[in-house]
């Protein structure tokens, strides 16, 4: 029996094009025994359902992955989220991770930075440098990237409400290094909607927040063509306790809100949709998670094509980062967490992720140590180089269970998105507490199952062992906060106040009108205006969002 002509057609079109652009990692992928591992497998007979629902990698609806060669072409980016205490300390950790073979940086900012407060703000007491690095001005960014050329790396920044400010600092840092903005590669999280329901680092109300986000889309489409302008995140929704279906549904509902806001602001969908990225959680139920990733990809492709009329395949593709599920880690028998992370990371890889962060075993106890971070990275390397999971594309396709689950998650997520629509859309659903209630109820039910031992968590409610030793955790010296505050105050003395005032005044005018905010923010950060100063101007104009449960 000859090869199905539809496979040949895919090979001659998408695959050939991809191979011409960049060859696969090896000429031959082989098993122990030197037999060749097939690039991709298909059913003996391709029916219409297979073609439309499962299809081919690198082709709509992208169920099997966004690239025609997937990891045979290039492995996922091993991107470990890191950041703590000062820019100087974090710079050391970044260099260590780069030395160990990490392939992309991912900055964790402390909470004051994420909420737009300077380190010397009364609201920042106790939080400076704790869950990430403290960044007050461009100066801190200069220290953070010392010896790291921005044209050689891609940087992901977990920053939302003040994303425009941190992005401006990154652009200004590039200028100082002689790297023009079109060479900058990376991602800003910039996903405010999930902050209102799951993560909590909002500043402004939804409407002005969406305006800032669309300003970023517009600015980047002209000036930072290789930068992912948003990372629409289900990760935190899942961490807050949602189910897999809720994770997909609420994330895609948020995504639709951003796309609609940008279209309403006058942007054409294909001008910004290619730079939308996603971020999902990989939890321990490996088969459900693989199905979830495949379902999310397919559902998004359909939405972009049919609802938003995106024409270019790149606009229909869901590219995503994955992090293993922090909430599944236990403080008891911490070594078990290495195993959990391995299963979760494998789910992400079998699900076709573009980049991956693996959690460290000690994160239920505190910040991870250098040793545990290394093991987390090694976990990805073992999967990449030893497991064989990266040598063939979408290996679980065609499994009756996986395909059924993929269909089910897609359908259920779509139905839940329709419910959000009936609530008046995402913003209205947030204001009514609809999304929050959904997540909370799922979290509580799950917890009750654990308490009743209906759900077994190894080492926690079954197979406990007495006196298991807790490993050391990384501690942040309380002096970090005092030093950061001292340095900031010194820097503030050295600035040209007149210039700062001028740039902040210009920013206020722009914010009050409808001018794109990126240029005025960039002008302010170049003069070393602080994050807090810039955000305070915006607070004055936009007001602040108040917690609504």
């Amino acid at each position: 029996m000859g090869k199905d002509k539809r496979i040949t057609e895919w090979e001659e079109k998408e695959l050939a094009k991809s191979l011409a652009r960049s060859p696969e990692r090896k000429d031959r992928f082989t098993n122990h025994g030197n037999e060749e591992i097939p690039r991709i497998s298909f059913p003996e007979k391709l029916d219409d359902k297979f073609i439309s629902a499962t299809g081919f990698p690198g082709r709509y609806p992208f169920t099997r992955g966004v690239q025609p060669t997937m990891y045979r072409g290039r492995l996922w980016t091993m991107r470990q989220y890191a950041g703590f205490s000062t820019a100087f300390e974090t710079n050391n950790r970044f260099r260590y991770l780069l030395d160990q073979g990490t392939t992309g940086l991912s900055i964790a900012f402390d909470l004051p930075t994420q909420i737009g407060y300077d380190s010397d703000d009364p609201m920042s007491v106790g939080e400076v440098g704790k869950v990430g690095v403290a960044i007050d001005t461009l100066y801190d960014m200069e220290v953070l990237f010392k010896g790291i050329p921005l044209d050689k790396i891609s940087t992901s920044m977990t920053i939302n409400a003040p994303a425009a400010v941190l992005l401006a600092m990154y652009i200004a840092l590039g200028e100082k290094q002689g790297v023009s903005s079109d060479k900058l590669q990376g991602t800003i999280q910039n996903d405010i909607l999930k902050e209102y329901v799951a993560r909590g680092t909002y500043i402004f109300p939804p409407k002005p927040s969406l305006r800032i986000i669309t300003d970023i889309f517009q600015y980047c489409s002209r000036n930072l063509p290789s930068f992912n302008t948003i990372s629409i995140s289900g990760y935190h929704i899942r961490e807050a306790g949602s189910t897999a279906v809720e994770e997909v549904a609420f994330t895609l509902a948020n995504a639709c809100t951003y796309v609609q806001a940008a279209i309403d602001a006058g942007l054409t969908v294909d001008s910004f949709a290619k730079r939308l990225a996603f971020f999902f959680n990989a939890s321990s139920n490996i088969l459900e998670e693989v199905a979830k990733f495949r379902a999310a990809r397919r559902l998004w492709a359909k939405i972009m094509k049919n609802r938003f009329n995106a024409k270019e395949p790149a606009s229909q593709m869901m590219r995503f980062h994955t992090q293993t599920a922090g909430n599944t880690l236990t403080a008891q028998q911490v070594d078990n967490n290495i195993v959990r992370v391995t299963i979760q990371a494998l789910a992400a890889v079998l699900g076709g992720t573009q980049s991956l962060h693996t959690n460290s075993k000690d994160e239920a106890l505190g910040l991870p140590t250098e040793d545990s971070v290394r093991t987390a990275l090694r976990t990805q390397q073992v999967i990449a180089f030893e497991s064989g999971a990266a040598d063939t594309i979408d290996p679980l396709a065609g499994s009756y269970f996986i395909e059924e689950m993929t269909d089910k998650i897609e359908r259920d997520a779509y139905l839940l998105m329709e419910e959000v629509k009936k609530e008046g859309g995402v913003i209205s659903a947030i204001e009514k507490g609809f999304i929050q209630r959904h997540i909370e109820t799922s979290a509580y039910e799950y917890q009750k199952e654990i308490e009743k031992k209906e759900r077994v968590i190894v080492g926690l409610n079954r197979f406990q062992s007495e006196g298991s030793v807790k490993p050391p955790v990384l501690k942040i010296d309380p002096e970090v906060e005092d030093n950061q505050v001292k340095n900031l105050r010194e820097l503030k003395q050295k600035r040209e106040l007149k210039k700062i005032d001028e740039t902040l005044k210009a920013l206020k005018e722009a914010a009050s009108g409808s001018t794109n905010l990126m240029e005025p923010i960039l002008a302010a950060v170049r003069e070393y205006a602080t994050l807090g100063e810039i955000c305070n101007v915006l607070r004055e104009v936009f007001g602040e969002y108040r917690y609504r449960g």
Partner: protein
Amino acid sequence: MTVKKIKNRVLIAKPGLDGHDRGAKIIARALRDSEFEVIYTGIRQTPEEIVSTAIQEDVAAIGLSSLSGAHLRLFPAVVAELEKRDAADIRVLGGGIIPDDDIETLKKAGIEAIFTPGAPLADIIDAFKRACDTFYGRKQTE
């Protein structure tokens, strides 16, 4: 002697900037399911705001939750504020990602009990019952 049955009234609070409130909300809900009256502050509260709410709402105990590592500064600040406001009889409990080394420090600072990841809900509810008993001057939980 008969003791008039007073409903246990507690405040669950998130001091500082930490937004991880899955735990706080689960505790609030579990306490409600155990017949407590529970007020949840929401995230991003200063120690002053928490104490003001506790006094206004006339609670017996405050449960503080922080997963961002700010507990050493923020939890004792709540106890100090209670003393300042002449409300030191209100009990304070805490939970979150709190390294073992810090637990003793927090207890010395007047935090009655600390719960870390994996603590059974039943233990947490019991601790709140005991705190309420102390506050209301009951001998033991009815």
